């Protein structure tokens, strides 16, 4: 067992334990903090796969922006952050159905996998970051989805500004 396998096992344990705690702890802020731990564990997995760019973006976007927005939303919308709040609402059967479906889907995909600690990701080419950048703006690859996503985000931003604007 080499060092990267030890790191993999530790970070996988971190991800699983903290993901479980996200849905079981009763304090919403703690749930958000455990979610951050989960996302950080995923970033470690990206590093192990030599996808440094994805790892850093994972931390910048998910921990730096989305998780902090979660914490803000929880603090601003909840009247109290006590541990006594119910963990489910009346939609729980639907959620159960959806997650069962997702579980079946994942099981279906994972069926053919060979599980072994020896599997090592194929090394990325030296200029993978440049290739990613080229792919995002080349018409043959992903320029259309990239631009559509940008327009969508811009529309969402303008919408949020409009809703929040103080009409005179």
């Amino acid at each position, binding site marked *: 067992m080499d060092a990267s396998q030890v790191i993999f096992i530790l970070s996988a344990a971190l991800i699983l334990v903290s993901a479980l705690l996200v849905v079981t702890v009763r304090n919403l802020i703690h749930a958000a903090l455990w979610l951050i731990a989960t996302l950080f564990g995923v970033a470690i997995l990206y590093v192990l796969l030599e996808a*440094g*760019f994805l790892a*850093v973006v994972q931390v*910048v976007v998910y*921990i*730096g922006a989305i998780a*902090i927005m979660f*914490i803000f939303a929880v603090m601003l919308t909840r009247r109290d952050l006590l541990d006594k709040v119910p963990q489910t609402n009346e939609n729980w059967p639907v959620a159960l159905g959806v997650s069962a479906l997702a579980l079946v889907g994942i099981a279906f995909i994972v069926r053919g996998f060979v599980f072994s600690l020896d599997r090592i990701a194929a090394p990325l080419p030296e200029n993978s970051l440049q290739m990613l950048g080229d792919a995002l703006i080349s018409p043959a690859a992903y320029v259309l989805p990239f631009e559509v996503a940008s327009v969508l985000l811009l529309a969402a931003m303008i919408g949020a500004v409009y809703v929040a604007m103080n009409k005179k």
Partner: protein
Amino acid sequence: MEFWVDPIKVIFEWLMLTLTGWGLSGELAVVIVDLLGIIALIMGAMLLDIMLVWVERKVVARFQGRLGPNRVGPWGLFQPFPDIIKLIIKEDTTPVGADKLVFNLAPILSLASVIFLWAVLPLASTIVGVDLNVGLLYLVAAGAIGTLSIIMAGWSSNNKYALLGAYRMVANMVSYEIPMVVALLIPTVLSGTMSLKGITLAQSNVWFVVLSPLGALLFLIAAIAELGRSPFDLNEGESEIVSGFHIEYSGMKFGLFYAGELLHAFTFGAFIGVMFFGGWQWPLPWGEKYALVGIFNVLAKGMFFYWVIMWIKYTVPRIRIDHMLAFNWKFLTPLAFVLLMVTAIVHALFMNMAPWLYTLAMFLANVLVGWVTLEILRSNARKQRVAVEAPQPVAQH
């Protein structure tokens, strides 16, 4: 002779020989030596941090026409040590109703987010923790963890002033991240890489501050905002919210926040030196070849920009939160985007021309952007002045 060129390699090989000589397997020995290296780097940063306490106190005293610490040791040089003893023997208080685990974790994360930065800081051509090909983005990621630590401190303290301070700080950091990322993209465009070592090497002829003085200025402003130092220190705001997010921390836990802030300022100073002022390559000319000279160069530049940051801190008064947000969203962010576009276009146009022409075009483009910005600001100010000076309607009776 080899030692002075690349000390890390010599020490590494010597340690490896020693450890494998003791019968350890090669892989385990590498892990142990790497760990030792990490610990040595952190120790170096923390020792520097101790002296920064003295530097900060002495410099602020001079700015305010005082003497500063001058009793313990020559020029008060050993003042930090009594400070540390005082911090350690103080009572360690935790407020009633505080979230203990989060409360204790926050100062550690705060200092850790600064130490993270040292992993990518190229101290010399051969001494760099890890030469990431996404080094600049890593800078932003470490800042995100700093934001997280502040919100954790503010929330877990069970104190409304702490929470207010944390809110202000997060609003500040999340907003100023945008001009900062755009300012970081300017060295990326100029050098074609996000690795800090690559950026330093790309400046062997011309520093990027000559190619993009506005970019360096934007980064400095965004860095000061990210640090939460005056004029952006609304998170502390002693006169309004009594030192904000770390109000409830006592003893060494407060010390961790304080040490983190000082080291953060110094580290950002060093990064400005690396990204815009040629890193290890000057003022002493042998920085490229001899590692220790390179370290001296980087640290000297870090100290200089740390002094600039202090100079601004103790000269400019705190600004109001609406001014701070307006300054970011209505001025810095548009300016940063315009500058990025201009830089990219000029780069594409002049990339294959003579170096002196490229440099001249880049510099003039920056001057032009700066001049247009100043003109727009002036006309805006004139408009506002006219609106204020306009005769107000007197109440009719």
